[in-house]
């Protein structure tokens, strides 16, 4: 190959890139411009995210300072009423007790608070956007590529602008997690609504339903199993992302994992990792069992 390059013009062998100087100039302009923009709106941004901070702090304090048996009982009650499955309840109780005995209770509560807030925000943002996408092909064509970027961009990369805008702390971590976790919520809401039986929609039209009545009575209820799958995915992705978000100051199990990585604490790393896995499985089984219960009426019994 080297021989071939000897006899060819240079620009065919070495890719003709822009000069380092011009790239540096562009980079500096963009970075400085962005920083300047952030600096001039810093107060507005802080005011905007302040409610998130309050909500997150409140929930975290509630989880951490309440006596653990109360929290455990509430958790078990939620799991039971969502799944109606004693096996899942027993599994939840066992894994939470082990987590507590290993001294990870408080960290787990912090992570739980984080994931709860992230999931709620992802649902509140995701469902309306999903509905908007389902109603219009143009909106879908516009949002889909954005979701593709959000899902494939390495999560570390968008931590950079998040930190530049919001600084270090829980809220930037939360925003990073939501950005990472919201795409499946949006996509599956969109998909669920688009998959609703055309005949049933036609019937709703034939009886004179307004757009809102159609959404409320037909589209949302029939899309609900798919939307539940979206919520399930969002929870799983939030749990995965809280570890990465610990790099920008989110506490809890993720922070322990990060410290274990830095110090090569093999046991600590795995114990915290398994605690995350346990929470993930609890959420997953519970939300799936709930989703199945929602679909119970569509099982064919005879006919």
């Amino acid at each position: 190959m080297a021989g071939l390059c000897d006899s060819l013009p240079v620009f065919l062998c070495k890719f003709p890139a822009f000069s380092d100087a011009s790239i540096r100039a562009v980079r500096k302009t963009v970075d400085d411009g962005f920083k300047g923009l952030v600096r001039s709106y810093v107060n507005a941004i802080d005011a905007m995210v302040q409610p998130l901070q309050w909500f997150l702090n409140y929930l975290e304090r509630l989880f951490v300072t309440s006596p653990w048996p109360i929290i455990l009982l509430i958790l078990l009650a939620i799991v039971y009423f969502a799944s109606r499955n004693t096996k899942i309840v027993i599994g939840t109780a066992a894994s939470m007790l082990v987590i507590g005995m290993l001294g990870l209770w408080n960290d787990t509560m912090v992570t739980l608070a984080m994931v709860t807030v992230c999931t709620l925000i992802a649902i509140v943002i995701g469902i309306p956007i999903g509905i908007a996408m389902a109603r219009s092909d143009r909106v879908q064509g516009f949002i889909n590529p954005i979701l593709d970027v959000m899902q494939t961009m390495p999560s570390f990369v968008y931590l950079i602008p998040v930190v530049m805008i919001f600084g270090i702390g829980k809220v930037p971590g939360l925003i990073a997690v939501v950005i990472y976790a919201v795409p499946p919520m949006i996509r599956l809401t969109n998909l669920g609504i688009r998959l609703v039986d055309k005949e049933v929609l036609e019937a709703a039209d034939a009886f004179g339903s307004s757009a809102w009545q159609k959404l409320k009575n037909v589209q949302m209820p029939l899309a609900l199993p798919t939307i539940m799958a979206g919520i399930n995915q969002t929870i799983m992705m939030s749990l995965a992302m809280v570890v990465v978000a610990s790099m920008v100051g989110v506490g809890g199990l993720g922070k322990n994992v990060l410290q274990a990585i830095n110090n090569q604490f093999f046991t600590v790393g795995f114990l915290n990792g398994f605690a995350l896995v346990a929470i993930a499985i609890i959420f997953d089984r519970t939300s799936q069992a709930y989703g199945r219960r929602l679909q119970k009426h569509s099982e064919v019994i005879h006919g």
Partner: protein
Amino acid sequence: MVSHAIEVRNLYKIFGPRGGDYVDAVKNGLGKAELNQQYGHVLGLRDINISMPAGGIMVVMGLSGSGKSTLIRHINRLIDPTAGEVLYDGVDVCRMSENDLREFRRHKTAMVFQKFALLPHRTVLENTVYGLEIQGIGQAEREKRAKQWIERVGLAGFENHYPNQLSGGMQQRVGLARALTNDADILLMDEAYSALDPLIRVDMQTVLLDLQKELKKTVVFITHDLDEALRLGDKIAILRDGMVVQQGTGQEIVLNPADEYITAFVKEVNRGRVVNVETIMAPLAGNPQGMPIAKGTVLETAARAMTGANQTQAHVVDEAGRPIGAIDIGAIISSMVTPTSHEAKAAA
């Protein structure tokens, strides 16, 4: 409640992004095949003119692809026409504003679908109240009204079942109850019974005929089954390739099929159950002979009555009991068998 007639006038439907551009070409004789080949548009309906009788059952019959489901969807404008008008009570449905159309659909029309189109997450009762619910009628009132119709269609006791727990026939009864609960003048039935077993289908036809005797709604019934059309229809229109080939009463179509296509259709029909005695009776000559037979009796019933009474002569009487014509068993039998001319036409 007085139901009005529905007038469909010069209705055209061309499917495709620029359907409107080709209406004139189609009016000037551009065919379905050429339209599709040259311009990539599909001719759905072509110059449909039907007046659907007030308070009667209008059957639109045709094979798949004939445009019959497209036609019924123009009556409540689930499909917008390319040209033409659909008049109900003097108002063109095709020109209604969005709000008027929604009110028209809520109060004037109700529809039953081939695949039932029930809401799977709602019980029978919750499905049945749907029309009233979106009209904003209170829960107690709408459930009271829905329960009456659930009982009328024979589903009492199943109010709290989900559609998937019911058989096809029962699901369509829910569909019918949902439509009837709406208490609308127009009942649109899009191949409502096509997905049902033959016996259940006949059963449901009887339900519809019984209800219609007292309700007198303007019913538009779509089917691909000629027997069903003849049994239900006060008037029948036969569609082929988006055009009306023939329209009239069942008798008119069976006795005078407009072309070979319809001849082939009516060949298999049991004429004894379609043709009435007054259609084939001879004028009275002298005193009425034999037993009296009421006007409107079909030939098969008349033949059964006459053979039962061991008579070969009979006279037809009108509602008041006055004799209006004479008939004998030979004439009945020759009218019940398919004429050879039709056999020959169909074979050709």
